[in-house]
């Protein structure tokens, strides 16, 4: 067996309730993004591209779709003899029955036996909620170089937004001096990306202690990291530069999709050296009809455009009928805009049908309209 020096655990149990109806039946990591992807494809592909072989996926909220999706490790090339994706929902245990994960750290604590199977030196903790491309092996090299007990990936955010994040105050060499969770008066603009590398031996010991601590929320940001700092452990901030988005709201999800219309966008999904992998759909190439007018658009296979489309992202299996006009809009998988309908500044949820001649959305509205239910035809 190949040496698995670092094992990855993806926290994918959250609902993402600010995504409203989009996450009624699926957890946020399973939400579609960028025409053909799901959000969790990003951390999974990053793991595969960084040479990580074993990835545990911790699921809890509405996990049926997510579990079956993430279990197909072959989609990310994680299916060789010594590699794989492993779905870890809460389970019933002999002495304590079935209990849900109480927090992010608890989800790891409850799966210490899984991790012990692989006897790793390092653990990489990831969130299943973010859109970014990152080489985790570089972060591990940084972690080793600084002989750190833990390394936290951080990104510079605008000062005025810093109070929405966990903020790291660091010394010149990157050592973390102070951690403030959503501070009113942030002392720096380095926000935690929710990406951590820990030394497994130390982490294991600390998790066992945290499990027993009745005052703990069993959360990395609220409890685990502050405890490490208090105990005088050496924690380092690893600065990441590049595209990183937490697509937590309908507006930010729409916006992140729209970013893809720009050729020079930082995410650059076309880069052949760092591909994002996903499930392959057995669909025809996209079909652009004889009367279609396609302006700026990001379109994937299995789409059919017969009407007018401008500044749109079209996901797998979507269709735009004759005479229909779709502008500034994201059509999620299998959404259908029938003949003559007009859709403006909207995000149309999976499988939703906009009936013939219907009009939805408003070019002047500040917020993006989420269309989560079929819209009847209008004669």
């Amino acid at each position, binding site marked *: 067996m190949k040496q698995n020096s670092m094992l990855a655990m993806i926290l994918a149990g959250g609902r993402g309730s600010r995504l409203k109806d989009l996450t009624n039946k699926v957890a946020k990591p399973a939400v579609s993004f*960028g025409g053909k992807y799901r959000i969790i494809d990003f951390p999974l592909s990053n793991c595969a591209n960084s040479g990580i072989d074993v990835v545990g996926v911790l699921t809890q909220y509405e996990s049926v779709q997510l579990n079956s999706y993430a279990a197909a490790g072959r989609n990310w090339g994680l299916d060789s003899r010594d590699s794989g994706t492993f779905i870890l929902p809460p389970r019933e245990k002999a002495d304590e029955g079935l209990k849900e994960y109480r927090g992010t750290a608890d989800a790891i604590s409850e799966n210490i036996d899984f991790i012990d199977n692989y006897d790793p030196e390092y653990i990489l903790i990831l969130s299943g909620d973010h859109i970014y491309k990152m080489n985790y092996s570089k972060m591990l090299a940084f972690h080793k170089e600084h002989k750190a007990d833990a390394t936290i990936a951080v990104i510079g955010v605008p000062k005025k937004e810093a109070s929405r994040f966990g903020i790291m105050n660091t010394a010149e060499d990157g050592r973390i001096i102070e951690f403030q969770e959503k501070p009113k008066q942030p002392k720096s603009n380095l926000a935690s990306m929710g990406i951590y590398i820990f030394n497994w031996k130390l982490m294991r010991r600390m998790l066992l202690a945290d499990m027993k601590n009745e005052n703990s929320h069993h959360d990395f940001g609220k409890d685990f990291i502050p405890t490490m700092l208090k105990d005088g452990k050496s924690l380092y901030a690893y600065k990441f530069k590049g595209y990183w988005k937490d697509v937590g709201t309908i507006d930010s999800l729409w916006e992140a999709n729209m970013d893809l219309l720009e050729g020079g966008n930082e995410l650059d999904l*076309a880069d052949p050296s760092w591909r994002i*992998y996903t499930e392959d759909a057995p669909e025809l190439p*996209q079909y*652009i009809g004889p009367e279609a007018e396609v*302006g700026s658009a990001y379109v*994937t296979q299995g789409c059919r455009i017969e009407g007018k489309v401008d500044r749109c992202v079209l996901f797998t299996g979507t269709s735009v009928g004759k005479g229909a006009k779709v502008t500034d809009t994201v059509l999620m998988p299998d959404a259908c805009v029938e003949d003559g309908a007009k859709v403006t500044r909207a995000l149309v949820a999976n499988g939703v049908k906009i009936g013939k001649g219907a009009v939805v959305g408003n070019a002047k509205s500040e917020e993006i309209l989420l269309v989560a239910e079929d819209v009847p035809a209008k004669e």
Partner: protein
Amino acid sequence: MARAYGIVAPSGGHMKVEGMDEFRPISAFSFLGRYRIIDFPVSSMSNSGIERIQVYVSQNPRSLAEHLGSGRTYNINSKRGKLQLLFNQDSRVNDVYNTDIKAYADNMDVIERMHQPYVIISPGHMIFTQNYGKLLDEHLQSGADVTIMYHKVNDADVAYRNCSVVNLNRQKGVKSIERNTGTVAERNIFMDTYVMSNELFMKLIHKAREISSVYRLVDIINAQNEALDIRGVQHKGYFAAVTDFKSYFDINMGLLDWNMAQELFRDEWPIYTQTTDSCPARYTPDSSVKNSMVANGCIIEGKVENSILGRGVSIRKGAIVRNCIIMGHAIIDEGVHVENQVVDKWGRVTNIKELVTTPDKPGYVRRNDIL
């Protein structure tokens, strides 16, 4: 379907597509932007529940071997099933001795070891879908020794060059299979598709080798017409045969008609192919695209009409692409006008600003060429 195994036959030596098969066999030709022609027989076999599939390759195997891989893409069970590539022992191109029978005889040990009692043979250069389970049922019900498939056409005088035609009696018994002479419009085109028992198949291979070294399977079937009960089954639905460069071009173009494409690509009968994990295609505000099929990974900044773009194709600003098949990763540079062309993979049209011919004589830009 444990009752039958499948064979994708080597395309006969008489089938030659000018320019293109220097690089790969017809079955490996890219098709409609993201497919290869071989995807059609293999997907149909897989969808029919056939678990063991043999693909015979007589020349230039690189492209097919790479594309088919382990067969997992085609939904073949990786333990119970197998997709096997089989080669001729010597594979001189365009040799009259290089027949399908020769390929089977060279691999007789594999054919003998198949434990499925029936074999279904389909060609690698024809495009259609077929439920082979149903075909086998018809074969068994009729009690025939061999069942073959044909497709009724009314343009055999102008198309289907190099195909065979089937003459039937009223009971759908096959009277003869002969070359399409192109003199009659209404014909039953032979689909090079057979069902028979593996036992009979092996007998026919031996017999063919005894009679003549240049015998093909169709020749021995024809010669055995008196001794065997051979029946024809009519195929319904989309059917096309790639017999030359022009037919390859026309068949691709014909599928730009959405209704026709719907006949071939049905939700309940998926056509599988290898994924390359390309990102979606990007259309810039300057682009204009009409009546076209576009594969993922394309970047379109120019004008595209009645065309098929393979994966990762770039159409730069001010370029005009009309009635073209642009294969994977090719580039049509700024201001270039191409019309009625097939641009093979990784080709690049940049210095020649006009590459225009008429639709009856489409042009061809070779793989990796820079113009």
